[in-house]
């Protein structure tokens, strides 16, 4: 099978390319980069006027399978991924049961293969059942395909256990990913602590709840030498802590989400849970710090924290409604909306180069011989209509907004899995 991505502006920072180039993919791998390549009998993706990049990887996604398939399935989540311009996702382990055994991880990978859309890289649980009391079997999980470990959604309270986890897993390449919120400081918060929460009579989580766990985890990373990734950073102080740790040689990376870049904690006057998320949307001081940190290089990765839920679940009272919302299908536009000054080269670093490096997975460049995973997108405004999402989760605070950028075509392993607004599962590959 041969695929030719023709006439697009190729942005490939690792190769230093920002020019109109054709990309030829044969048998799943990049075979040639050049001008006016011969199409022959290749499947052609016309990318004239569009931008072509190494496949985007969203390293923070909740696919909900197994156990919560009314919210999302591996098939629906990866359909949302490719429609949103992603060729791969890392899926978080807070499923039911959690991704804490090789058998479950293998089954997730089998179902991802069967879906035939985006690549799926499982993130294994950090502790058994994410309960924070016993280590998950890291070597078994890594053998089964896990690329990182996390108790995302919460954090182990026990610093000794976390330190031992980092020591025990020190020689595995899999990064630890932290969800940083102190459960005591957070309490029953449904939003950020600030003037809005005080006025509305709602429990708020202070930024401090995040900062103290970021500090703890950075110190454990420094102590153990384990590579660490701080998920969904939301505060100026956390960013300062990360800069401090990095200056001391700690192996730390971090990500920010589209919603924390775009929105403030002023979205709760109707007491609906549409914008309820952990960590919560913050105030303008923190949001401006996040935007600046993406531009100045402190932030390594843009990740959505795609967290689909049923409409009825999100329609509950604020205290009862689950946290999070879908992100895969608005991501590219949302990033461009929040960060209009971000260069395309940096954009590709944040979405492809750095996630591939941090997770230790192939990709991040379309150099000859690399996997034929390509994201084609353009700066064309469109209006979000969540009802049209491929994701089962139809809830997003971006619903109804006009976003300036969108995915046009997505190619995984040389197969065109999204084009002209349609998701196109790969045909069954026979061995």
């Amino acid at each position, binding site marked *: 099978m041969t695929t030719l991505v023709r006439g697009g502006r190729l942005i490939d920072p690792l190769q230093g390319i920002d020019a109109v180039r054709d990309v030829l993919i044969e048998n799943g791998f990049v075979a040639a980069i050049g001008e006016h390549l011969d199409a022959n009998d290749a499947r052609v993706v016309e990318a004239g006027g569009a931008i072509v990049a190494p496949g985007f990887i969203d390293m923070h996604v909740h696919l909900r399978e197994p156990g919560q398939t009314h919210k999302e399935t591996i098939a629906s989540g990866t359909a949302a991924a490719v429609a949103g311009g992603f060729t791969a996702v890392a899926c978080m382990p807070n499923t039911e049961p959690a991704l804490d055994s090789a058998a479950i991880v293998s089954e997730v990978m089998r179902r991802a293969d069967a879906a035939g859309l985006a690549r799926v890289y499982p993130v294994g649980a950090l502790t058994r059942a994410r309960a924070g009391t016993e280590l998950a079997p890291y070597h078994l999980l890594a053998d089964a395909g896990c690329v990182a470990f996390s108790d995302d959604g919460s954090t182990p309270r026990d610093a000794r256990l976390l330190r031992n986890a980092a020591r025990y897993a020190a020689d595995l390449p899999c990064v630890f990913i932290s969800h940083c919120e102190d459960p005591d400081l957070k309490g029953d918060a449904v939003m950020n602590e600030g003037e809005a929460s*005080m006025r509305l*009579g709602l429990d708020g989580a202070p930024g401090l709840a995040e900062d103290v766990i970021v500090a703890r985890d950075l110190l454990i990373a420094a102590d153990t030498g384990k590579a660490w990734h701080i998920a969904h950073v939301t505060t100026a102080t956390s960013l300062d802590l990360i800069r401090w740790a990095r200056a001391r040689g700690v192996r730390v990376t971090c990500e920010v989400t589209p919603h924390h870049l775009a929105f403030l904690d002023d979205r709760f006057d*109707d007491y*609906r849970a549409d914008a309820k998320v952990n960590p919560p949307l913050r105030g303008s001081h923190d949001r401006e710090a996040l935007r600046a940190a993406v531009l100045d290089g402190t932030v390594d990765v843009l990740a959505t924290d795609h967290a689909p839920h049923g409409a009825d679940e999100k*329609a509950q009272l604020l205290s009862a409604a689950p946290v999070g919302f879908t992100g895969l299908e608005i991501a590219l536009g949302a990033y461009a909306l929040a960060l209009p000054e971000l260069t395309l080269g940096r954009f590709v670093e944040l979405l492809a180069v750095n996630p591939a490096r941090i997770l230790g997975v192939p990709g991040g460049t379309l150099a000859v011989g690399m996997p034929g995973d390509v994201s084609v997108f353009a700066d064309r405004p469109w209006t979000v209509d969540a009802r049209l999402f491929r994701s089962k989760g139809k809830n997003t605070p971006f619903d109804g907004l006009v976003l300036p950028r969108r995915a046009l075509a997505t190619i995984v392993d040389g197969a065109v899995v999204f084009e002209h607004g349609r998701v196109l599962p790969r045909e069954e590959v026979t061995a």
Partner: protein
Amino acid sequence: MPARSLLDVDDLSPAELVAVLDRAVAFREVLPPRDLLAGVPVLNLFFEASTRTATSFTLAEQRVGADVISFAPGASSLGKGETIADTALTLYGIGVRVIVVRHQQSGFARRLADAFEGHVINAGDGTHAHPTQALLDLMTLRQEFNRFDGLRVAIVGDILHSRVARSNIVGMRAMGIDVTLVGPPTLLPREFGAGGVRIERDFDAVLPHVDAVMMLRIQRERITGGLLASLDDYTLRYQLNRARLRSLGGSAMILHPGPYNRGVELTDDVLDDPRSRYVAQVHNGVFVRMAVLDLLVNGVPVAA
């Protein structure tokens, strides 16, 4: 057009607020015929226990001739997983046109009002708002001072957990009252200082300079996680007692939304003090609630 609701004081324009108080005063002087809401089904939906507010609303509803249904939904359909929208649809379908609702959670009244085609009156939602309490407090203040503008009022105690404080801040600011909040930093975070409200920690420094002091109940069930060291420690600085009554002006007024904890935020001396207006407050409450029902269902002419 959706029916009007009263979720917080600022659902009323300043002119409407004054009109409601005027109407309440008129009702207090001469009870109206019992037909202002003749045949209108009014549901009292109290998810949270209430003595004075539930009784006051019920009496107000009966005095305007409404068909009163009272219901304390311990394990209602909402507890069985029915959505707010479905409950609202059902209640309207049954024929309910006004819901007076109290709920433990902030925002419940708003969520119900957004789904219900009739009128919703918020009788207290979590720590957020209690607009009819604020209206009766304003009515009691005006009764005494015949004005709002320039009055100095201190609200003292557990501001953080007080829907009464929040609604009074909104209502008093709208009426031009000079509001000072007094309490310890854990129960009065600095974020309350937004919008022209003063924050003071020293009750004794504030007392001599106010026209009215509103003492809030310490909500013991919410005092967790180190919000207070102890009640003794709190009362040393924030209790209104015999000694502090001496520094309160002779013509000043003491308000309390009730229920009070004798010996905590105030002592028996306060309740016996002639400046205490607790009885006037609860008395006015019935007329304010009649006026609110009348405004929402029938509209009230507002002078241009």
